[in-house]
């Protein structure tokens, strides 16, 4: 990657800027929100957009801007945790199956296929019904559902790399299997993996929003973008701003990561 190429890569630039702004806002929201996101103020019930309340207030008089900030933080944490679980186990399974092949490959990949065959939301619902709802359970449930797609990507990259001469010469120099897998081959899968991580991040944001919308993700009174949307739907006509702002935030987040992923692919 060099700067000249990056400057021409409009997707990458737009994605970085958009993601950067969103992350900066969310980070700022960790330390300061105009109001406590959970404090109710009956006098400000359904307050409109004003300087006092940048995005207005909800049916309990809570400041929507503050709730969007803390809600996107929750959403991001869930998405990051999900992707982390997916990537770590995906790399492990993908590396072992791709490098060794044979019976191990067959067994692990058929299990992988079985998990992959379920829609990830459905699978996560299944785990939630076993584990109970809540932020951390959502992370685990979605994380497991995300493992197969990463495992496949890593596996195919390992298959492509394992017969290359640089691996053979590492073997001749005396490198062990694990060193070859994780020190020699793994860095070569990074370009592909990074763009998959961005897409995975997007899917995780949407999945979390979806699950919270259904009421099995983050529990009230904590905010999450999906929860806010589901709370807002009863007031769609009386207070459209309530649904609009969390929805917009989801769109901007997903768009930012999507552009970044496209940009990385072109590198």
């Amino acid at each position, binding site marked *: 990657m060099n700067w000249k190429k990056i400057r021409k890569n409009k997707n990458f630039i737009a994605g970085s800027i958009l993601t950067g702004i969103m992350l900066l806002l969310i980070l700022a929201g960790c330390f300061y929100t105009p109001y406590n996101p959970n404090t109710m103020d009956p006098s400000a019930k359904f307050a409109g957009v004003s300087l006092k309340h940048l995005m207005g207030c909800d049916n309990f008089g809570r400041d929507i801007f503050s709730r969007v900030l803390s809600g996107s933080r929750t959403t991001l944490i869930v998405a990051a945790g999900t992707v982390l679980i997916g990537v770590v186990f995906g790399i492990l399974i993908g590396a072992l199956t791709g490098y060794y092949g044979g019976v191990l490959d067959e067994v692990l990949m058929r299990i992988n296929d079985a998990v992959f065959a379920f829609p990830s939301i459905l699978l996560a619902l299944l785990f939630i019904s076993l584990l109970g709802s809540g932020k951390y359970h959502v992370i685990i449930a979605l994380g497991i559902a995300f493992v197969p797609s990463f495992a496949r990507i890593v596996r195919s990259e390992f298959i492509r790399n394992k017969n290359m001469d*640089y691996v*053979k*010469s590492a073997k001749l120099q*005396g*490198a062990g299997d694990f060193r070859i897998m994780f020190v020699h081959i793994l*860095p070569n899968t990074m370009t592909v993996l990074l763009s998959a991580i961005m897409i995975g991040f997007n899917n995780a944001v949407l999945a979390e929003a979806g699950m919270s919308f259904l009421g099995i993700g983050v529990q009230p009174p904590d905010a999450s973008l999906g929860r806010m949307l589901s709370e807002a739907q009863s007031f769609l006509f009386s207070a459209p701003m309530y649904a609009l702002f969390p929805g917009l935030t989801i769109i901007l987040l997903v768009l930012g990561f999507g552009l970044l992923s496209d940009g990385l692919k072109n590198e």
Partner: protein
Amino acid sequence: MTENILEVTDLQVSYPVSRKTPFEKKKSIQVLKDISFTMKRGEILGLVGESGSGKTTLARSILQMIPYEGTIIRNTVQPQMVFQDPYGSLNPSQRIAWILEEPLRLKGGLSKEERVQKVKTMLQRVGLEEKILERFPRELSGGQRQRIAIAAALMLEPELLIADEPVSALDVTIQAQILALLKEIQKEMNLSILFISHDLRVVYEMCDHVLIMQLGQIRESGDVEEVYFHHKDPYTGKLLKAAGIETA
């Protein structure tokens, strides 16, 4: 020093043929038949043959990368290999410094400073400048890459080097430079080189002895001059004629 560094006796190698169904009989194709030869310490032995004659398979069995029957006696530490394609033989995601240091890291017992010092000495030996250490393989030319590949293979100070068509991916002027480098290093380190090539002219320039292979068998072997100018096997004659070498 006439000790043999390599003694190969009755080497047989066969590859299994992949079956369409698990019920078919297991079949295999024999790619090396009754290969026997010895290689002396400090010599360059040429291994010549057309594509598919089993040259690379022979190299792999000497390196014990594939299963074989027969005996291979290696009176040496683990031999190292220089591959044909310098694009694939250097890890694309690592810097040259890392690539050259890795063999020493794997061997262990040296401090970071000692390793860096050894890398710099080796770099000088293969005729490259230090600033190349910070680059990635894709930023180097084919000739530079092959020099790095040679350097990496020599880091562990092997006594036997197997060079599998080390110059056939390079253009002619670079070829001459790399060959000169190999010959120079061979003299300096008293290295033995098994030099695999299909280019008879290059082999004549480089080697002391030569093995002519066809279809997994050795057709003729001996001193280069002897084989080139007084060949006994008609296949050798055919090869020489095809290469445009007049042998009277």
